[in-house]
């Protein structure tokens, strides 16, 4: 058996779906952010796998993975800062408690 791009795509698909389930089901803001990181991680695995199999010399996928990591690092930093700001205002991080925009 040789491991091809399809195996990595399947692995990333399973990881992404698990992350999607977590984002949709968790009620804690921090857990939601962690599941978002899991989804970004699955995408990065796909990018690096395609880089290895498709453009091994140019490493285009690896470059995209680097920039994707930059964006998700910024996202988790800002997201956690927002969680802290919300906690300071509301004394809770439950998503159910934030309903001001509900009509």
């Amino acid at each position, binding site marked *: 058996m040789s491991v091809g791009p399809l195996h990595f795509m399947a692995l990333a698909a399973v990881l*992404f779906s698990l992350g999607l389930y977590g984002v949709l089901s968790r009620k804690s803001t921090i857990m939601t952010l962690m599941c978002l990181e899991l989804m970004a991680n699955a995408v990065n695995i796909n990018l690096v796998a395609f880089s290895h199999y498709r453009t091994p010399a140019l490493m285009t996928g690896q470059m995209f993975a680097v920039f994707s990591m930059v964006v998700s690092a910024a996202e988790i930093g800002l997201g956690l800062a927002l969680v802290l700001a919300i906690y300071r205002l509301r004394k809770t991080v439950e998503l159910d408690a934030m309903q001001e925009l509900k009509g």
Partner: protein
Amino acid sequence: MSETVSPVMFLILAFATIGGAVMMLSTRNVVHAAFWLLEIMVATAGLYLLLSAEFLALVQVLVYAGAVSVLVLFVIMLTLRRREDAIRPYEPSWAGTIIAALFLGALYMAITRFVPVIAEMPEKVPGVADFGREMFTTWMLPFEVASLVLLAALVGAVWWSKGGDGR
């Protein structure tokens, strides 16, 4: 790293990542979930090594296993008032399960129809030096923009998380 991917290592690391994700979603303790996320990130770094992306494996360990995990743990500890608050009620979601399963099915159909075109591996497997050369020639401008993004995120994070009434 060799140009072929070892099946045994791939299976071990795939088990580690998917098992870690399942454990992260099934545990009720938020702190345990953060540690499972750390395990997933380290296993992903192993997958990058398997794909001969040494630099990315290093960055993955530094940024995700190092910085992001510590940040997540800090915020968990800062937003818990009692130790028992870390244990959360069991919260299954049928809608979430159905949407995630439908998404996985759509991805499965897309993957089975996909015919990969595999390029020939060059004689010399590109290493970290080639990566750096490529990054600072072809990808110079995106690299600088990325540093601006990080600077903006840094300032924004400090601004948002600083004391409530300090204007």
